[in-house]
């Protein structure tokens, strides 16, 4: 991005929109880095007015400490070598006597240790993104500058160890991975004149990378891929099973890389489906005969082969998954198919595949971004399997007796956890990503989630489920608080994979029993997509669909349907709340 364009983006932004506030902690003058960061954030978050505030020049540690107390919702810490010891920079001249090198190493290690502590402390309150040194290590030693000196090796090791600890922190820390052509990153004239070490190009590059981490984005849930000339080189129907390829020998390695990525995504819990215009029998044979395929048949659900229009196949897949088109990426080598599906599902991201190595590498990076998650949880791993199971389990369509019998035989177990665990990412994900059973559609940031649970009258109820078909993992999250003889529920989400099991009734029963209250107040609101929630509320005895929705204890227990779950309740030790 040019500086001109960055400034125009900022000047053109709507100042009346909700502010997205970022605190930039660096040791140098923030200058153009601050401008570029705000501009990139503004581009990524057009629904907000981007604001980037910065601290005091030359005080990286102090600025990092200020993140927690600032009004910003996220912090970005930018570290360069000269911030750790001025002798590693060019604005001070204290000499580089070889006798000073051990002291420089020791001082730098101490500074890094302090900085690490400050970053971790800040991350307990705010999401923090850390950018470790991107400029070249200064040439302090006598060695050939084309080689790594012992000082450089020692300090880079310290830095690597710090990076290793930071990425494994349970708090909200992200360490920037600024891969790409760093070019001429250092501007010595600017560093000497203004205390800003970066060239404009490098400042723009870093700011763009930072904005990709800092800005909230919707992670996609599913990927639908074509097969011919996408997963393999060749047309199955024309070339035959033995004559489609994905290896170096047949100049088709990029297809193999794509298969590898699909397999990895499937294993990480991304829903992967195939939509192919092929004979279903031929496709089945292909996966049966070609055991050298990197992506396996079980990675796909469903594996949809048909001669119908591609958009109809995609529509069926979406129905099977029960997710919206906006959560899905469609990939096909055929421009016609990409256009056809894109027209039918304008909110779906449709990508035309091409087998060039450059395209596949960029696609790899792009898909990793779209399906990114910090950790792969058990719920992610079992997601595909549970949807498969859900499609096989014949849920009775009619009659309570049939349903009661079905649910009785499920041998279902519910694990209810009452806590104030603000690090429960899965629960926050449920509240932020679920639509059909979402109490009011309110989305919470990490900070808001954390702040909600600071109140000692508040609690998080996280619900795990399994039955004879297998575990579903954590499928419901509820945020509530005690107010006198009431429990007020401010957020509640239930995964659509867990519908039709009366789990929502079990949650309310647990609230009444564990919290010993006479009434539950649900702060619900109608959204475009929470029709399942509305149906549930309509089934409860109450005063109609109003906000707040009151559930009276006596009426609830009188009308509650039979529940057959084996319930295990755990109340967190930190919980002194009189539940």
């Amino acid at each position, binding site marked *: 991005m040019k500086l*001109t364009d960055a400034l125009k983006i900022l000047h053109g932004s709507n100042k009346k929109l909700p502010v997205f506030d970022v605190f930039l902690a660096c040791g140098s003058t923030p200058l153009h880095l601050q401008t570029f960061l705000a501009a990139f954030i503004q581009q990524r978050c057009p629904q907000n007015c981007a604001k980037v505030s910065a601290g005091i020049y030359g005080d990286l540690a102090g600025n990092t400490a200020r993140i927690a107390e600032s009004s910003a919702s996220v912090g970005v810490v930018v570290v360069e070598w000269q911030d750790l010891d001025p002798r590693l920079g060019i604005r001070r001249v204290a000499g580089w006597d070889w006798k000073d090198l051990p002291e420089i190493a020791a001082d730098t290690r101490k500074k890094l240790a302090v900085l690490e502590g400050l970053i971790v402390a800040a991350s307990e309150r705010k999401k923090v993104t850390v950018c470790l040194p991107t400029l070249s290590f200064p040439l302090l030693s006598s060695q050939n500058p084309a080689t790594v000196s012992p000082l450089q090796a020692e300090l880079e090791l310290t830095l690597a160890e710090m990076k290793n600890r930071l990425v494994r922190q349970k708090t909200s820390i992200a360490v920037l991975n600024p891969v790409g052509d760093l070019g001429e990153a250092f501007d010595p004239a600017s560093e000497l004149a203004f205390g800003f070490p970066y060239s404009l190009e490098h400042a723009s590059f870093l700011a763009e990378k930072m904005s990709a981490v800092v800005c909230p984005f919707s992670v996609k849930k599913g990927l639908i891929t074509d097969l011919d000339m996408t997963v393999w080189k060749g047309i199955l129907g024309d070339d035959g099973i033995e004559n489609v390829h994905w290896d170096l020998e047949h100049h088709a390695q990029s297809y193999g890389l794509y298969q590898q990525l699909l397999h990895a995504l499937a294993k990480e819990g991304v829903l992967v489906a195939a939509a192919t215009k092929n004979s279903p029998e031929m496709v089945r044979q292909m996966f049966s005969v070609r055991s050298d395929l990197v992506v396996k048949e079980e990675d796909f659900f469903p594996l949809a082969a048909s001669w119908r229009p591609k958009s109809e196949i995609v529509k069926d897949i979406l129905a099977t998954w029960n997710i919206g088109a906006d959560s899905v990426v469609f990939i096909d080598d055929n421009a016609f198919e990409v256009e056809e599906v894109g027209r039918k599902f304008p909110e779906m991201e449709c990508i035309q595949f091409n087998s060039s190595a450059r395209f596949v590498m960029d696609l790899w990076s792009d898909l990793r971004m779209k399906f990114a998650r910090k950790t792969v949880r058990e719920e992610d791993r079992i997601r595909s399997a549970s949807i498969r199971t859900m499609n096989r389990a014949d849920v009775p369509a009619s009659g309570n007796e049939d349903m009661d019998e079905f649910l009785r035989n499920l041998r279902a177990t519910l694990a209810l956890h009452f806590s104030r665990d603000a690090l429960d990412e899965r629960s926050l994900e449920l509240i932020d990503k679920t639509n059909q059973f979402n109490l009011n559609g309110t989305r919470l940031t990490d900070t808001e989630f954390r702040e909600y649970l600071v109140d000692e009258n508040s609690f998080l109820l996280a619900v795990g489920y399994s039955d004879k078909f297998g575990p579903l993992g954590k499928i419901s999250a509820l945020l509530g608080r005690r107010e006198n003889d009431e429990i007020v529920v401010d957020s509640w989400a239930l995964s659509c994979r867990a519908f039709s099991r009366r789990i929502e009734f079990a949650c309310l029963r647990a609230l009444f029993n564990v919290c010993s209250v006479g009434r539950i107040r649900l702060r619900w609101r109608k959204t475009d997509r929470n029709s399942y929630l509305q149906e549930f509320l309509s089934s409860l005895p109450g005063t109609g669909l109003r906000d707040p929705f009151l559930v009276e204890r006596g009426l609830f227990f009188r009308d509650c349907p039979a529940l057959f779950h084996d319930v295990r309740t755990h109340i967190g030790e930190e919980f002194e709340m009189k539940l």
Partner: protein
Amino acid sequence: MTAIDSKLLECMRTVFPTVSDEKLTEASVETLEQWDSLATVTLAALIEESFAIEIDPEEVANLNSFRSIASFLGRKEQHAQPDGECR
């Protein structure tokens, strides 16, 4: 208005979007309240970008009015190499 003046005015508009063109062409560090040191540095970077030149940091302090910047750019152009680069 010369080509240099027009291009310079574009840069000034980007740094001072709320100021009229008439005021910008007469603006200086003394007369325009918004023209602080940060604006000077930003303006210098924009001019480098727009005119594809490098400005010695020592010269930045002298870029303190529209007229002085326009003169500076005029001199740069006169000393430019045939390929258009200024040295």
